[in-house]
Protein backbone atom coordinates (compact mmCIF):
# COMPACT_ATOMS: atom_id res chain seq x y z
CA UNK A 1 0.00 0.00 0.00
CA UNK A 2 2.05 2.92 -1.20
CA UNK A 3 0.72 6.42 -0.92
CA UNK A 4 1.44 9.71 -2.55
CA UNK A 5 4.61 10.98 -0.82
CA UNK A 6 3.14 14.49 -0.99
CA UNK A 7 0.41 13.46 1.47
CA UNK A 8 3.10 11.98 3.73
CA UNK A 9 4.99 15.27 3.73
CA UNK A 10 1.78 17.17 4.59
CA UNK A 11 1.09 14.85 7.48
CA UNK A 12 4.57 15.14 8.85
CA UNK A 13 4.02 18.83 9.45
CA UNK A 14 0.69 18.21 11.11
CA UNK A 15 2.01 15.58 13.51
CA UNK A 16 3.54 18.25 15.72
CA UNK A 17 0.24 20.09 15.87
CA UNK A 18 -1.63 16.92 16.75
CA UNK A 19 0.82 15.95 19.48
CA UNK A 20 0.45 19.39 21.06
CA UNK A 21 -3.34 19.03 20.95
CA UNK A 22 -3.18 15.60 22.62
CA UNK A 23 -0.93 16.92 25.35
CA UNK A 24 -3.18 19.94 25.93
CA UNK A 25 -6.08 17.66 26.88
CA UNK A 26 -4.43 16.11 29.91
CA UNK A 27 -1.10 15.05 31.30
CA UNK A 28 -0.03 12.12 29.13
CA UNK A 29 2.89 9.82 28.66
CA UNK A 30 4.24 8.42 25.43
CA UNK A 31 2.11 5.29 25.30
CA UNK A 32 -1.06 7.46 25.63
CA UNK A 33 0.02 9.59 22.68
CA UNK A 34 0.86 6.55 20.55
CA UNK A 35 -2.46 4.96 21.40
CA UNK A 36 -4.42 8.07 20.44
CA UNK A 37 -2.58 8.35 17.15
CA UNK A 38 -2.61 4.64 16.36
CA UNK A 39 -6.21 4.61 15.13
CA UNK A 40 -5.66 7.57 12.82
CA UNK A 41 -3.72 8.34 9.65
CA UNK A 42 -1.03 9.67 11.95
CA UNK A 43 -0.05 6.33 13.48
CA UNK A 44 3.45 6.89 14.82
CA UNK A 45 6.12 4.85 16.48
CA UNK A 46 8.47 5.55 19.36
CA UNK A 47 11.36 6.04 16.95
CA UNK A 48 9.63 9.13 15.58
CA UNK A 49 7.81 10.38 18.64
CA UNK A 50 10.67 10.56 21.15
CA UNK A 51 12.85 12.80 18.99
CA UNK A 52 9.83 14.98 18.23
CA UNK A 53 8.92 15.38 21.90
CA UNK A 54 12.51 16.13 22.73
CA UNK A 55 12.63 18.89 20.10
CA UNK A 56 9.33 20.42 21.32
CA UNK A 57 10.70 20.43 24.84
CA UNK A 58 13.89 22.12 23.69
CA UNK A 59 11.75 24.77 21.95
CA UNK A 60 10.03 25.33 25.29
CA UNK A 61 6.58 24.24 24.10
CA UNK A 62 6.23 21.40 26.56
CA UNK A 63 7.68 20.07 29.72
CA UNK A 64 7.68 16.74 31.49
CA UNK A 65 7.92 15.39 34.97
CA UNK A 66 8.79 11.95 36.22
CA UNK A 67 5.92 10.21 37.87
CA UNK A 68 5.65 6.84 39.54
CA UNK A 69 3.34 4.47 37.70
CA UNK A 70 1.20 1.87 39.41
CA UNK A 71 3.05 -0.88 37.56
CA UNK A 72 6.64 -0.68 36.46
CA UNK A 73 9.25 2.04 36.48
CA UNK A 74 8.48 5.79 36.68
CA UNK A 75 7.31 7.45 33.48
CA UNK A 76 7.73 10.83 31.86
CA UNK A 77 4.42 12.67 31.86
CA UNK A 78 4.25 15.58 29.41
CA UNK A 79 2.27 18.80 29.59
CA UNK A 80 2.20 22.09 27.68
CA UNK A 81 4.06 25.16 28.83
CA UNK A 82 2.61 28.66 28.47
CA UNK A 83 4.61 29.03 25.25
CA UNK A 84 3.16 25.72 24.07
CA UNK A 85 -0.38 26.95 24.75
CA UNK A 86 0.28 30.11 22.73
CA UNK A 87 1.82 28.14 19.88
CA UNK A 88 -1.15 25.80 19.83
CA UNK A 89 -3.63 28.69 19.83
CA UNK A 90 -1.77 30.10 16.82
CA UNK A 91 -1.87 26.70 15.13
CA UNK A 92 -5.62 26.44 15.78
CA UNK A 93 -6.33 29.87 14.37
CA UNK A 94 -4.15 29.13 11.38
CA UNK A 95 -5.95 25.83 10.84
CA UNK A 96 -9.34 27.57 10.72
CA UNK A 97 -8.08 30.13 8.22
CA UNK A 98 -6.42 27.43 6.14
CA UNK A 99 -9.65 25.45 6.02
CA UNK A 100 -11.65 28.49 4.92
CA UNK A 101 -9.08 29.25 2.25
CA UNK A 102 -9.11 25.70 0.93
CA UNK A 103 -12.91 25.59 0.95
CA UNK A 104 -13.23 28.90 -0.84
CA UNK A 105 -10.88 27.87 -3.63
CA UNK A 106 -11.99 25.80 -6.54
CA UNK A 107 -15.62 25.57 -5.53
Amino acid at each position, binding site marked *: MSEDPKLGALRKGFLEFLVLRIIRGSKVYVADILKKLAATDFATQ*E*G*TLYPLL*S*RLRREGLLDYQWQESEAGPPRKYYRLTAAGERQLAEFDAYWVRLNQTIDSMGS
Partner: protein
Amino acid sequence: MRPVISVSLNGRAYQLEDDAHAALAEYLDSAARELAGNPDQAEILDDLEHAIADKLERCLNPHKTVVIRSEIEQVIREMGPVDSGVAGASPHDSGPAGEAPAGSGTAAGAGSSREPDEPASKRLYQISDGALISGVCKGISVYLDIDVTLVRLLFVIAAVLTGGLAILVYIVMMFIVPYANTAEEHAAARGLPFNARVLVEQAKLKAAQLADAAAQAAMHNRSREARMQWKAEWRKARAQWRQERRRSRAQWRAYRWTGIPPATASPAAPPLPPLAHLICGLIAAALGLVGALVTVAWLFALFSLLTTGAVFGWMPFHLPLWGAVIALLLIYLAVESPVRAVRHAMVPRFYGYPYHWYAFWDGLVGLALLALALWYVTHHGHDLQNSFDSLQQNLQPAWHQFLLAWQTLVHGTH
Protein backbone atom coordinates in the same frame (compact mmCIF):
# COMPACT_ATOMS: atom_id res chain seq x y z
CA MET B 1 23.25 -23.99 23.69
CA ARG B 2 23.55 -20.30 22.99
CA PRO B 3 25.66 -17.74 24.81
CA VAL B 4 23.63 -15.08 26.59
CA ILE B 5 24.62 -11.45 26.98
CA SER B 6 23.34 -9.37 29.84
CA VAL B 7 22.50 -5.77 29.14
CA SER B 8 21.20 -2.98 31.32
CA LEU B 9 18.27 -0.99 29.95
CA ASN B 10 17.06 1.82 32.13
CA GLY B 11 18.49 0.35 35.27
CA ARG B 12 17.17 -3.18 34.71
CA ALA B 13 19.17 -6.20 33.61
CA TYR B 14 18.00 -8.16 30.58
CA GLN B 15 19.49 -11.32 29.20
CA LEU B 16 19.66 -11.53 25.43
CA GLU B 17 20.83 -14.37 23.23
CA ASP B 18 23.93 -13.28 21.35
CA ASP B 19 22.23 -12.65 18.01
CA ALA B 20 19.36 -10.82 19.73
CA HIS B 21 21.97 -8.65 21.42
CA ALA B 22 23.60 -7.93 18.06
CA ALA B 23 20.26 -6.85 16.57
CA LEU B 24 19.51 -4.54 19.50
CA ALA B 25 23.00 -3.04 19.47
CA GLU B 26 22.66 -2.36 15.77
CA TYR B 27 19.32 -0.61 16.26
CA LEU B 28 20.63 1.60 19.07
CA ASP B 29 23.81 2.38 17.10
CA SER B 30 21.80 3.47 14.09
CA ALA B 31 19.60 5.54 16.39
CA ALA B 32 22.70 7.22 17.83
CA ARG B 33 24.00 7.92 14.30
CA GLU B 34 20.65 9.37 13.23
CA LEU B 35 20.60 11.60 16.30
CA ALA B 36 24.22 12.69 15.95
CA GLY B 37 24.40 16.43 16.54
CA ASN B 38 21.07 16.48 18.33
CA PRO B 39 21.63 18.17 21.69
CA ASP B 40 19.21 15.72 23.30
CA GLN B 41 20.83 12.63 21.81
CA ALA B 42 21.60 11.02 25.16
CA GLU B 43 18.16 11.69 26.54
CA ILE B 44 16.35 10.38 23.47
CA LEU B 45 18.47 7.23 23.52
CA ASP B 46 17.52 6.82 27.18
CA ASP B 47 13.86 7.19 26.28
CA LEU B 48 14.20 4.61 23.52
CA GLU B 49 15.89 2.16 25.88
CA HIS B 50 13.11 2.75 28.36
CA ALA B 51 10.47 1.95 25.75
CA ILE B 52 12.39 -1.15 24.60
CA ALA B 53 12.65 -2.36 28.19
CA ASP B 54 8.87 -1.91 28.59
CA LYS B 55 8.25 -3.97 25.49
CA LEU B 56 10.69 -6.70 26.53
CA GLU B 57 8.86 -7.18 29.82
CA ARG B 58 6.02 -8.55 27.73
CA CYS B 59 8.21 -11.37 26.38
CA LEU B 60 9.51 -12.45 29.76
CA ASN B 61 8.07 -14.40 32.64
CA PRO B 62 9.47 -16.43 35.50
CA HIS B 63 9.86 -19.40 33.15
CA LYS B 64 11.39 -17.49 30.29
CA THR B 65 14.16 -15.17 31.27
CA VAL B 66 16.09 -14.83 28.03
CA VAL B 67 15.11 -12.68 25.04
CA ILE B 68 15.56 -14.24 21.62
CA ARG B 69 16.28 -12.61 18.29
CA SER B 70 12.76 -12.79 16.85
CA GLU B 71 11.40 -11.00 19.90
CA ILE B 72 13.99 -8.24 19.59
CA GLU B 73 13.15 -7.90 15.91
CA GLN B 74 9.46 -7.60 16.75
CA VAL B 75 10.21 -4.90 19.33
CA ILE B 76 12.38 -3.01 16.86
CA ARG B 77 9.61 -3.15 14.25
CA GLU B 78 7.22 -1.69 16.82
CA MET B 79 9.68 1.04 17.73
CA GLY B 80 10.12 2.09 14.13
CA PRO B 81 13.14 3.75 12.57
CA VAL B 82 14.52 6.65 14.55
CA ASP B 83 13.73 9.95 12.91
CA SER B 84 16.02 12.84 13.84
CA GLY B 85 12.97 15.03 14.29
CA VAL B 86 14.24 17.80 12.05
CA ALA B 87 11.15 18.21 9.91
CA GLY B 88 11.84 17.85 6.24
CA ALA B 89 15.57 17.52 6.85
CA SER B 90 15.86 14.01 5.51
CA PRO B 91 14.33 13.71 2.05
CA HIS B 92 14.43 9.91 2.05
CA ASP B 93 12.19 9.84 5.07
CA SER B 94 8.53 9.51 4.27
CA GLY B 95 7.69 10.22 7.89
CA PRO B 96 4.64 8.80 9.59
CA ALA B 97 3.01 8.17 6.22
CA GLY B 98 5.54 5.49 5.39
CA GLU B 99 5.46 4.13 8.88
CA ALA B 100 1.73 3.97 9.28
CA PRO B 101 1.23 0.68 7.45
CA ALA B 102 4.26 -0.82 9.15
CA GLY B 103 2.94 0.31 12.52
CA SER B 104 -0.48 -1.18 12.00
CA GLY B 105 1.10 -4.33 10.63
CA THR B 106 3.25 -4.88 13.66
CA ALA B 107 0.35 -4.12 15.95
CA ALA B 108 -1.60 -6.89 14.27
CA GLY B 109 1.46 -9.10 14.42
CA ALA B 110 1.84 -8.52 18.13
CA GLY B 111 -1.79 -9.48 18.61
CA SER B 112 -1.65 -12.59 16.54
CA SER B 113 1.59 -13.81 18.07
CA ARG B 114 -0.37 -14.37 21.25
CA GLU B 115 -3.14 -16.19 19.48
CA PRO B 116 -2.91 -19.90 18.79
CA ASP B 117 -0.97 -20.62 15.61
CA GLU B 118 -3.94 -22.17 13.88
CA PRO B 119 -7.65 -22.25 14.60
CA ALA B 120 -8.37 -25.14 16.90
CA SER B 121 -10.17 -27.88 15.02
CA LYS B 122 -12.90 -29.74 16.81
CA ARG B 123 -13.30 -33.46 16.31
CA LEU B 124 -15.71 -36.04 17.59
CA TYR B 125 -14.09 -38.58 19.87
CA GLN B 126 -15.25 -41.20 22.30
CA ILE B 127 -14.22 -40.26 25.79
CA SER B 128 -13.86 -43.07 28.28
CA ASP B 129 -13.48 -40.86 31.36
CA GLY B 130 -16.95 -40.78 32.87
CA ALA B 131 -18.36 -42.99 30.13
CA LEU B 132 -21.29 -45.30 30.79
CA ILE B 133 -20.95 -47.72 27.91
CA SER B 134 -18.25 -46.76 25.52
CA GLY B 135 -18.10 -43.01 25.70
CA VAL B 136 -20.03 -42.10 22.56
CA CYS B 137 -22.57 -39.96 24.45
CA LYS B 138 -19.81 -38.43 26.53
CA GLY B 139 -17.91 -37.58 23.37
CA ILE B 140 -21.00 -36.02 21.79
CA SER B 141 -21.71 -34.03 24.94
CA VAL B 142 -18.16 -32.68 24.97
CA TYR B 143 -18.30 -31.96 21.25
CA LEU B 144 -21.57 -30.05 21.58
CA ASP B 145 -20.64 -28.66 24.98
CA ILE B 146 -23.85 -29.85 26.66
CA ASP B 147 -24.51 -32.06 29.63
CA VAL B 148 -23.81 -35.75 29.12
CA THR B 149 -27.01 -36.78 30.92
CA LEU B 150 -29.06 -34.82 28.41
CA VAL B 151 -27.35 -36.60 25.53
CA ARG B 152 -28.01 -39.99 27.16
CA LEU B 153 -31.64 -39.11 27.77
CA LEU B 154 -32.02 -38.10 24.14
CA PHE B 155 -30.35 -41.32 23.07
CA VAL B 156 -32.70 -43.43 25.19
CA ILE B 157 -35.71 -41.53 23.87
CA ALA B 158 -34.40 -41.96 20.33
CA ALA B 159 -33.85 -45.66 21.00
CA VAL B 160 -37.47 -46.07 22.14
CA LEU B 161 -38.92 -44.00 19.31
CA THR B 162 -36.92 -45.67 16.58
CA GLY B 163 -37.47 -49.14 17.93
CA GLY B 164 -33.86 -49.80 18.75
CA LEU B 165 -32.32 -48.17 15.70
CA ALA B 166 -30.48 -45.62 17.86
CA ILE B 167 -28.83 -48.50 19.70
CA LEU B 168 -27.54 -49.78 16.40
CA VAL B 169 -26.29 -46.29 15.64
CA TYR B 170 -24.56 -46.28 19.00
CA ILE B 171 -22.91 -49.61 18.31
CA VAL B 172 -21.75 -48.45 14.90
CA MET B 173 -20.34 -45.26 16.42
CA MET B 174 -18.65 -47.34 19.08
CA PHE B 175 -16.59 -48.94 16.37
CA ILE B 176 -15.96 -46.04 14.02
CA VAL B 177 -15.50 -43.03 16.32
CA PRO B 178 -11.93 -42.99 17.63
CA TYR B 179 -11.11 -42.73 21.30
CA ALA B 180 -9.55 -39.60 22.70
CA ASN B 181 -6.47 -40.91 24.42
CA THR B 182 -3.83 -38.27 24.28
CA ALA B 183 -3.95 -34.75 25.61
CA GLU B 184 -4.04 -33.49 22.02
CA GLU B 185 -7.12 -35.56 21.27
CA HIS B 186 -8.89 -34.51 24.44
CA ALA B 187 -8.18 -30.93 23.51
CA ALA B 188 -9.44 -31.53 19.97
CA ALA B 189 -12.61 -33.13 21.34
CA ARG B 190 -13.33 -29.87 23.14
CA GLY B 191 -12.09 -27.72 20.27
CA LEU B 192 -9.40 -26.18 22.41
CA PRO B 193 -6.10 -25.02 21.02
CA PHE B 194 -3.32 -27.38 21.94
CA ASN B 195 -0.07 -25.61 21.51
CA ALA B 196 2.95 -24.35 23.30
CA ARG B 197 0.95 -21.74 25.14
CA VAL B 198 -1.35 -24.31 26.67
CA LEU B 199 1.64 -26.40 27.61
CA VAL B 200 3.29 -23.40 29.20
CA GLU B 201 0.15 -22.69 31.19
CA GLN B 202 0.04 -26.27 32.39
CA ALA B 203 3.67 -26.00 33.34
CA LYS B 204 2.96 -22.82 35.26
CA LEU B 205 0.14 -24.48 37.14
CA LYS B 206 2.39 -27.37 37.99
CA ALA B 207 5.14 -25.03 39.08
CA ALA B 208 2.66 -23.20 41.30
CA GLN B 209 1.64 -26.50 42.90
CA LEU B 210 5.24 -27.42 43.47
CA ALA B 211 5.98 -23.97 44.87
CA ASP B 212 3.10 -24.44 47.30
CA ALA B 213 4.50 -27.77 48.38
CA ALA B 214 7.90 -26.17 48.75
CA ALA B 215 6.50 -23.35 50.85
CA GLN B 216 4.88 -25.89 53.12
CA ALA B 217 8.10 -27.82 53.36
CA ALA B 218 9.94 -24.62 54.12
CA MET B 219 7.55 -23.90 56.98
CA HIS B 220 8.42 -27.20 58.51
CA ASN B 221 12.08 -27.12 57.81
CA ARG B 222 14.03 -24.16 56.58
CA SER B 223 17.26 -26.04 56.29
CA ARG B 224 19.38 -26.14 53.17
CA GLU B 225 18.65 -29.82 52.77
CA ALA B 226 14.96 -29.13 52.36
CA ARG B 227 15.67 -26.65 49.61
CA MET B 228 17.94 -29.09 47.84
CA GLN B 229 15.29 -31.73 48.09
CA TRP B 230 12.65 -29.45 46.65
CA LYS B 231 14.94 -28.48 43.83
CA ALA B 232 15.58 -32.11 43.00
CA GLU B 233 11.87 -32.78 43.11
CA TRP B 234 11.16 -29.86 40.81
CA ARG B 235 13.75 -31.11 38.33
CA LYS B 236 12.28 -34.57 38.49
CA ALA B 237 8.76 -33.26 37.92
CA ARG B 238 9.92 -31.25 34.96
CA ALA B 239 11.72 -34.17 33.41
CA GLN B 240 8.68 -36.36 33.96
CA TRP B 241 6.43 -33.77 32.41
CA ARG B 242 8.64 -33.41 29.36
CA GLN B 243 8.80 -37.16 28.96
CA GLU B 244 5.02 -37.36 29.15
CA ARG B 245 4.56 -34.78 26.42
CA ARG B 246 7.07 -36.55 24.22
CA ARG B 247 5.46 -39.93 24.77
CA SER B 248 1.94 -38.70 24.13
CA ARG B 249 3.05 -36.95 20.97
CA ALA B 250 4.86 -40.05 19.73
CA GLN B 251 1.81 -42.18 20.45
CA TRP B 252 -0.43 -39.74 18.66
CA ARG B 253 1.84 -39.80 15.62
CA ALA B 254 1.93 -43.59 15.70
CA TYR B 255 -1.85 -43.66 16.00
CA ARG B 256 -2.28 -41.50 12.96
CA TRP B 257 0.03 -43.67 10.89
CA THR B 258 -0.97 -47.13 12.03
CA GLY B 259 -4.48 -46.62 13.38
CA ILE B 260 -3.47 -48.50 16.51
CA PRO B 261 -4.84 -46.55 19.47
CA PRO B 262 -2.13 -45.79 21.98
CA ALA B 263 -2.34 -47.12 25.50
CA THR B 264 -4.03 -44.57 27.68
CA ALA B 265 -1.39 -42.12 28.76
CA SER B 266 -1.95 -41.55 32.42
CA PRO B 267 -1.59 -37.94 33.48
CA ALA B 268 0.94 -37.48 36.21
CA ALA B 269 -0.66 -38.57 39.46
CA PRO B 270 -0.69 -36.04 42.27
CA PRO B 271 1.05 -37.05 45.44
CA LEU B 272 -1.23 -39.56 47.17
CA PRO B 273 -0.48 -41.36 50.42
CA PRO B 274 1.23 -44.64 49.41
CA LEU B 275 -1.33 -46.84 51.14
CA ALA B 276 -4.26 -45.02 49.55
CA HIS B 277 -2.48 -45.22 46.23
CA LEU B 278 -2.09 -48.98 46.64
CA ILE B 279 -5.72 -49.51 47.69
CA CYS B 280 -7.06 -47.35 44.89
CA GLY B 281 -4.88 -49.15 42.41
CA LEU B 282 -5.92 -52.60 43.64
CA ILE B 283 -9.62 -51.77 43.64
CA ALA B 284 -9.41 -50.18 40.22
CA ALA B 285 -7.53 -53.18 38.86
CA ALA B 286 -9.96 -55.67 40.44
CA LEU B 287 -12.95 -53.77 39.10
CA GLY B 288 -11.32 -53.57 35.70
CA LEU B 289 -10.94 -57.35 35.74
CA VAL B 290 -14.57 -57.83 36.78
CA GLY B 291 -15.68 -55.48 34.03
CA ALA B 292 -13.59 -57.34 31.48
CA LEU B 293 -15.03 -60.72 32.59
CA VAL B 294 -18.58 -59.40 32.34
CA THR B 295 -17.82 -58.06 28.88
CA VAL B 296 -16.37 -61.36 27.69
CA ALA B 297 -19.35 -63.27 29.12
CA TRP B 298 -21.67 -60.87 27.38
CA LEU B 299 -19.89 -61.26 24.05
CA PHE B 300 -20.20 -65.05 24.36
CA ALA B 301 -23.89 -64.70 25.17
CA LEU B 302 -24.38 -62.42 22.19
CA PHE B 303 -22.51 -64.81 19.93
CA SER B 304 -24.59 -67.72 21.17
CA LEU B 305 -27.80 -65.73 20.67
CA LEU B 306 -26.92 -64.74 17.14
CA THR B 307 -25.81 -68.23 16.07
CA THR B 308 -28.28 -70.48 17.90
CA GLY B 309 -31.14 -68.06 18.54
CA ALA B 310 -30.92 -68.61 22.30
CA VAL B 311 -28.58 -67.58 25.06
CA PHE B 312 -26.71 -70.81 25.81
CA GLY B 313 -29.86 -72.69 24.86
CA TRP B 314 -32.02 -70.57 27.11
CA MET B 315 -34.75 -68.20 25.95
CA PRO B 316 -37.00 -66.99 28.77
CA PHE B 317 -39.16 -64.50 26.87
CA HIS B 318 -40.66 -64.92 23.50
CA LEU B 319 -38.80 -62.05 22.04
CA PRO B 320 -37.81 -61.63 18.43
CA LEU B 321 -34.09 -61.69 17.81
CA TRP B 322 -33.68 -57.91 17.79
CA GLY B 323 -35.55 -57.64 21.09
CA ALA B 324 -33.35 -60.31 22.63
CA VAL B 325 -30.22 -58.44 21.52
CA ILE B 326 -31.49 -55.26 23.15
CA ALA B 327 -32.50 -57.10 26.30
CA LEU B 328 -29.07 -58.69 26.44
CA LEU B 329 -27.43 -55.32 26.01
CA LEU B 330 -29.56 -53.85 28.80
CA ILE B 331 -28.74 -56.74 31.12
CA TYR B 332 -25.08 -56.28 30.34
CA LEU B 333 -25.30 -52.59 31.12
CA ALA B 334 -27.21 -53.19 34.33
CA VAL B 335 -24.46 -55.53 35.53
CA GLU B 336 -21.57 -53.55 34.16
CA SER B 337 -22.53 -49.99 35.00
CA PRO B 338 -22.33 -50.18 38.81
CA VAL B 339 -18.88 -51.69 38.44
CA ARG B 340 -18.02 -48.95 36.01
CA ALA B 341 -19.46 -46.25 38.23
CA VAL B 342 -17.34 -47.32 41.18
CA ARG B 343 -14.30 -47.68 38.99
CA HIS B 344 -14.74 -44.22 37.57
CA ALA B 345 -15.20 -42.87 41.05
CA MET B 346 -11.92 -44.53 41.94
CA VAL B 347 -9.86 -43.78 38.88
CA PRO B 348 -10.29 -40.01 38.79
CA ARG B 349 -9.09 -39.89 42.38
CA PHE B 350 -6.14 -41.79 41.07
CA TYR B 351 -5.52 -39.26 38.38
CA GLY B 352 -6.21 -36.28 40.56
CA TYR B 353 -9.25 -34.91 38.78
CA PRO B 354 -11.30 -32.70 41.04
CA TYR B 355 -14.63 -34.36 40.33
CA HIS B 356 -14.57 -37.80 41.92
CA TRP B 357 -18.14 -37.58 43.01
CA TYR B 358 -19.26 -36.29 39.69
CA ALA B 359 -18.20 -39.55 38.08
CA PHE B 360 -20.07 -41.49 40.74
CA TRP B 361 -23.31 -39.53 40.32
CA ASP B 362 -22.88 -39.71 36.59
CA GLY B 363 -22.86 -43.47 36.91
CA LEU B 364 -25.91 -43.47 39.18
CA VAL B 365 -27.91 -41.25 36.85
CA GLY B 366 -26.99 -43.51 33.98
CA LEU B 367 -28.12 -46.52 35.99
CA ALA B 368 -31.47 -44.87 36.72
CA LEU B 369 -31.91 -44.16 33.03
CA LEU B 370 -31.17 -47.77 32.23
CA ALA B 371 -33.67 -48.98 34.81
CA LEU B 372 -36.23 -46.70 33.19
CA ALA B 373 -35.43 -48.09 29.76
CA LEU B 374 -35.61 -51.65 31.09
CA TRP B 375 -38.96 -50.95 32.73
CA TYR B 376 -40.26 -49.49 29.51
CA VAL B 377 -39.17 -52.48 27.48
CA THR B 378 -40.74 -54.99 29.92
CA HIS B 379 -44.04 -53.09 30.20
CA HIS B 380 -44.38 -51.82 26.69
CA GLY B 381 -42.47 -54.48 24.84
CA HIS B 382 -45.54 -55.30 22.77
CA ASP B 383 -46.01 -51.72 21.64
CA LEU B 384 -42.39 -51.62 20.74
CA GLN B 385 -42.66 -54.87 18.87
CA ASN B 386 -45.76 -53.68 17.06
CA SER B 387 -44.14 -50.45 16.01
CA PHE B 388 -41.09 -52.30 14.84
CA ASP B 389 -43.21 -54.84 12.94
CA SER B 390 -45.17 -52.11 11.21
CA LEU B 391 -41.93 -50.38 10.37
CA GLN B 392 -40.65 -53.62 8.93
CA GLN B 393 -43.84 -54.11 6.93
CA ASN B 394 -43.53 -50.61 5.56
CA LEU B 395 -39.93 -51.06 4.71
CA GLN B 396 -40.26 -54.50 3.17
CA PRO B 397 -41.72 -53.43 -0.20
CA ALA B 398 -39.08 -50.75 -0.51
CA TRP B 399 -36.38 -53.27 0.37
CA HIS B 400 -37.69 -55.71 -2.23
CA GLN B 401 -37.74 -53.02 -4.84
CA PHE B 402 -34.20 -52.11 -3.93
CA LEU B 403 -33.13 -55.74 -4.21
CA LEU B 404 -34.88 -56.06 -7.56
CA ALA B 405 -33.21 -52.92 -8.87
CA TRP B 406 -29.87 -54.13 -7.60
CA GLN B 407 -30.27 -57.53 -9.24
CA THR B 408 -31.25 -56.05 -12.58
CA LEU B 409 -28.29 -53.68 -12.29
CA VAL B 410 -25.86 -56.48 -11.52
CA HIS B 411 -27.26 -58.80 -14.17
CA GLY B 412 -27.52 -55.97 -16.62
CA THR B 413 -23.80 -55.30 -16.38
CA HIS B 414 -22.93 -58.97 -17.00
